[in-house]
C-alpha cells in the first residue's frame, strides 16, 4: 500500500500520511477553496491541485515538495473563438480529470475539463493546448450534453501503459472515446452500453459513463460505473457488457476501483437510484465482485448502517494494493486495509470529498 492519501475537497487540498498504523494529516493547502482534483504524478511525485474558485475561475497549482510550497501554472484555457454551442463561448469551467502521459512521454500531462475539452501539456504543465481533434469531433455540438454538470465534461483519462499513445476517455454525457495516436483521431466506443434517458436509444453518443477505469494487470479489461448500470469490457472498450446486479445494490453509483492484481475483482460505491442520490436504504455500502461482475457482495463492516446520507463521488474511491479508501459527500473518510472486508473511520469532519488518490 502506498502511504500517502491525497484528497480534493470542497474546502481544501488535504494530504494524509500512514504512520504507525494510523492516517495522520500531513498537509492542508488552499483552505477555503474547492479542489476539484488532487493529483499526484507518480513519475515525479509532483502534486497537483485543480482549484475551482467560486469567483476567480479555474486555477492549477503544482508542488514539488509535498505541498510545502505551490506554484501556479497557467490553467488550461480555450482558444479565442472556441464555442460550446454556436454563439456560446467556451471557457474552462472545471478541471475534472488529470492523468500523466506515461514513461514514453515523460513531460506529457492530460487534463479533462467541463465543457468537454481535453487538454495536453508536453512540458509538465507549463503550457496546455486544447486537443482540437476531439473538440472538433462531429458529434460534440449536437451529441454531447451535460450530465452531473451543466455542460459535457471529461472526467476519465485512461492511458494504456503498453502503448501510451492509446488513450480512452470518459465523457458525461457522450460516452467513451478512444485514440491510438495520442489524440490525432478518435473512435467512439459505446457499443453494448445502454441509456434509458436518451430519446433515441440507438444514438451514437449521449451515454453517461460516470467513471472509466482499466485493470492494472490487463488493460484490455475495462470497467465503468455508468449512470444506468455497471459495464465491463474484455476487449479494451470495443464491446461493453452490463454486469450490474439486477435488483441488487450494485447498480447505480459514481465510483469504481479495480484490483491491481486481478482484473475481475472490482469495487463500486452504490447510491440510491438516480433520483435521490443518497446512501442505499440509509446505509453505507461498498460492493465487491471477484468474478468479473457475475456476482456482487456487500461490504458493510465498519460502515454506518442507519441514518446515513453519504454517497461517494466518482473520483473519491481509491485503491492501492490491498487497501481501499473513500471520501464522501458529507465529509467522512473511510479506510480498509483488507480489500473492503473491514472499514475504519479516518475522519468524520472533512469537507465534501471530491477526489482521493493513494500516492508515494
Amino acid at each position: 500500500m502506498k502511504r500517502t492519501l491525497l484528497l480534493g475537497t470542497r474546502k481544501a487540498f488535504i494530504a494524509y500520511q500512514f504512520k504507525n498504523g494510523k492516517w495522520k494529516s500531513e498537509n492542508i493547502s488552499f483552505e477555503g477553496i474547492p479542489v476539484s482534483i488532487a493529483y499526484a504524478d507518480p513519475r515525479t511525485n509532483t502534486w497537483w491541485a485543480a482549484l475551482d474558485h467560486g469567483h476567480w475561475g479555474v486555477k492549477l497549482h503544482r508542488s514539488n515538495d509535498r505541498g510545502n510550497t505551490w506554484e501556479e501554472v497557467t490553467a488550461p484555457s480555450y482558444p479565442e473563438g472556441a464555442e460550446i454551442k454556436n454563439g456560446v463561448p467556451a471557457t474552462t469551467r472545471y478541471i475534472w480529470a488529470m492523468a500523466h502521459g506515461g514513461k514514453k512521454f515523460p513531460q506529457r500531462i492530460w487534463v479533462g475539463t467541463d465543457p468537454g475539452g481535453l487538454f495536453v501539456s508536453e512540458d509538465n504543465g507549463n503550457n496546455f493546448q486544447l486537443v482540437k481533434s476531439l473538440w472538433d469531433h462531429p458529434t460534440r455540438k449536437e451529441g454531447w450534453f451535460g450530465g452531473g454538470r451543466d455542460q459535457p465534461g471529461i472526467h476519465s483519462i485512461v492511458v494504456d501503459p503498453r502503448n501510451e499513445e492509446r488513450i480512452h476517455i470518459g465523457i458525461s454525457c457522450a460516452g467513451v472515446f478512444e485514440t491510438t495516436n495520442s489524440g490525432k483521431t478518435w473512435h467512439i466506443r459505446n457499443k453494448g452500453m445502454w441509456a434509458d434517458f436518451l430519446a433515441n436509444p440507438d444514438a451514437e453518443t449521449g451515454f453517461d459513463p460516470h467513471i472509466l477505469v482499466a485493470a492494472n494487470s490487463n488493460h484490455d479489461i475495462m470497467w465503468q460505473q455508468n449512470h444506468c448500470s455497471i459495464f465491463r469490457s474484455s476487449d479494451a472498450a470495443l464491446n461493453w457488457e452490463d454486469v450490474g446486479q439486477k435488483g441488487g445494490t450494485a447498480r447505480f453509483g459514481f465510483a469504481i476501483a479495480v484490483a491491481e492484481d486481478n482484473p475481475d475483482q472490482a469495487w463500486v460505491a452504490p447510491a440510491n437510484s438516480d433520483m435521490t442520490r443518497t446512501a442505499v436504504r440509509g446505509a453505507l455500502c461498498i460492493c465487491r465482485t471477484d468474478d468479473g461482475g457475475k456476482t456482487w457482495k456487500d461490504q458493510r463492516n465498519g460502515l454506518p448502517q442507519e441514518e446515513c446520507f453519504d454517497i461517494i463521488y466518482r473520483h473519491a474511491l481509491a485503491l492501492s494494493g490491498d487497501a481501499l479508501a473513500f471520501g464522501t459527500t458529507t465529509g467522512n473518510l473511510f479506510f480498509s486495509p483488507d480489500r473492503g472486508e473491514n472499514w475504519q473511520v479516518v475522519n468524520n469532519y472533512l469537507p465534501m470529498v471530491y477526489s482521493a488518490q493513494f500516492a508515494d
Partner: protein
Amino acid sequence: MKDVPTEGNSFTEIFRELDSHYPGLSKYVLDEQGSLRKHVNIFIDGKIISDRSKLTDTFLVNSEIYIMQALSGG
C-alpha cells in the same frame, strides 16, 4: 480594498497595466474569452457596467473603476 492609480482608455489597457503590477490578475477577473467572470462586478463611478462580455463601457480620465467580487457561497 486596494487603490491602484491606472492609466488607460479601455478596459484592455487598464487590465494590461494592472497585470504589469500584479501578474496574472486579469485572469482572475476575466475568463479566457475576455468576459467578466460570473461572480465579479465592475462599477464605473458607482454605476455597474452593462457590457460584461466585451467590456465596452466607457469611462473618463478621473473615473473610479471599482472591481468587486460578489458575496456568495458557503
